[in-house]
Every structure is written in C-alpha cells, then in structure tokens.
C-alpha cells in the first residue's frame, strides 16, 4: 500500500493505493488519525485501492468515530466495487458518507 496526502476544497485528501491489508493497515490508521489529530477535515480517496480487508475497514471506522467526536468532517470517495462489497458485508455503506469523488463531496457539502 502507498499513500499520498493533498489539500482540496478545505479537506485533507488521503489517497490510498494498492492493497490495504493486515500488513499495512496500521500505517493507514496512523495517517488517518494523524490528520484528525491536526484537526483537519478528512476524505479518504479509495479509487486506487484494489483490496481492503477488515483491518483496513476497522481503521476507517475508528477514523470516522474520531472525526465525529472532534466535530470534523470525514468521508470516503472513489470506493471501488470490491471495497464496496466488503463495506456492504458489514452494512457500513449505510454508515460512511460515500461519494464518487472529491468534487461530488464538495457539491454535497454545498
């Protein structure tokens, strides 16, 4: 897994690339919590994620809950078919704010 961080429309966008599995999800978690520690609104761009396992999903869950507690905005964008299947299995597609891309999220924010 690789990641990049960029700023866009008032959000920090954490773009993950590759496989988010047990071996690297601790790094994804660290980056998510780091952004939130710095009080930044966060979007996780998953358009380049071809596989995410439960440990990766758990990191997203923890991130979302942390953002809520700190009154920060959080969301997922570009969730691929396989990642969506994993989210749907635990009905998390009904929990996370999910948008096609950053622009769609910004539009939804108004």
């Amino acid at each position: 897994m690789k990641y990049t961080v960029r700023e866009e429309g008032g959000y920090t966008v954490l773009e993950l690339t590759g496989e988010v599995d047990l071996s690297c999800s601790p790094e994804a978690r660290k980056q998510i919590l780091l952004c939130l520690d710095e009080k930044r609104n966060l979007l996780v761009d998953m358009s380049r994620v071809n596989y995410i396992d439960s440990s990766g999903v758990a990191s997203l869950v923890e991130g979302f809950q942390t953002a809520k507690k700190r009154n920060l905005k959080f969301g997922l964008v570009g969730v691929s078919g396989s990642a969506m299947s994993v989210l749907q299995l635990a009905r998390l597609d009904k929990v996370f704010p999910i948008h096609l891309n950053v622009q769609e999220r910004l539009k939804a924010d108004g």
Partner: protein
Amino acid sequence: MATTAPRTPVIEIENLVTHYGRRQILHGVDLTIYEGEIMIIMGGSGSGKSTLLRFLLGLGRPTSGSIRMLGKDITQASPMEMHELRKNMGVAFQGGALLSSMTVGENVQLPLREHHGHLDEKTMQIMARLKLEVVNLGGFEDLMPSQLSGGMIKRAAVARAIITDPKMMFFDEPSAGLDPVVSAELDELILRLRDAMRMTIVVVTHELQSAFKIADRITVLDKGRILMTGTVQEVKASDNDRIQSLLNRRVSTEEIHAEEYLERLTMEARTP
C-alpha cells in the same frame, strides 16, 4: 446455483489415501477446488467426508498422495509452513469450539492475537465487532458462550473463523442441530462471504437442501471414494444408484463382507 467456474486452483488433492489404524478410509481421492468456489463435500455417515476435511486442515499425515493449498503441499509442510498457511484458513467446527472461559468477543479476536499481534488493540476490537455484525451478533461480544443458543454459537464460530479474512474457509456440518430458519440464514451468510470476499469455501454436509442452495459444485463421497464431482444439476441428474440413494434417503442395501466385518470386530488378521 452454479456460476461461471473460476479457474485458479486453490486446493488440489491428488490420489489421497488415508488409514485409520489398519482400516483404509480414503481410497485415492482426487479433487481440485477453485478460487471463489463453494464446494460441497457430501456423503453419508462413514463416507470419509469428515476424514477428508481433517486432512484438508492439516490435522494428520496421509498414507500417500498430496494436498496442495495455495501451491504448497501440506502433507510435506513443516510446522512453521503450516502455521503460515493457517493464516489463510478459517474453520467453523460443527460444535462451534468456542473457549468457554472467554467472552464471545475474546473468542472472535483469538486468531488475530495468535497471528497478527502487531495490530492496535482498538483495531482488533473493531474488527471483532464488525465480524459479529456480519453474522448478526452485533452487541453480543461481552456475553459468555454458555449464554448463547446453538445457532448463535455457530455464528460466533463463523465470526472467529473469518476474523482474518482468510482466503479459504471450511465449514463442518454448518446446519447440524439448527432449526430450518437459522440454517437458511447460515447458508445466506456463506453465499455473502463468498461474494464479498471472494473466499474459497469448502462445506462438509449431509444436508441436501443446504447443499443444493449454496453449491457451485458438489463432490459425493462414498466409502472413501469420490462417486462424482459436478454441479447441482449434474449431481441431481446422475444415474448412479448410490448417489440417488443418498439424494432420496434410501437405506443402503449393501451386502456385508463377512470376513472383513469379523476381522474388524475381532481385530485379528485373516489367516493367509
């Protein structure tokens, strides 16, 4: 519900022969199971299906033959290699096999602590809760196994088996002892796991209704030999008497082999 057969082999069994004491249980089993496939191993009592599962789990050395899993022959694997391979295997045992002194949540987290201790405590807790949600046991993590019903124990065992998102999942008689509604729920869960996680799933069962509902292919074992491997339609259409007996629940009218029977009872070899 046959789907387009995926073609990457995950489990390749070749000419597997096993004995229990002097008694031969499996007589040269050949079977290939592909990625993302739900393979049902079906057969009556004494057919060898539980024995086959035991060897698939690496719980014994066969007399001869090989079992390649993800390309590795487990009949030749060292304990360390087997330990690595088991990270990719989930097993839901017939009786659940939950540890009675641990809460449901602790039971579910057990494979993570065994294989993936580098994960953050919070990650492990959320993963366990996620899996309990998947099996419809959300919020039950603090209960003890003794406080669960039979169906709940089975589902908790499934949650534990899938906690590491294994590539291969083995179910031993998932429907045994469950009422039809709970049993149907478990079938649905098996299908969802395959579809969402692309798991390769092996189910040992004698429950026909369940087998026909979830199988991509079925292997019918009888007296340690494979009678046939095929889709649900192919198995139903088989003109093999033994298969039809199994499907129609007819009592086997096989003749007793007197000498072998007597030998088994007395455990004495026949005089040459």
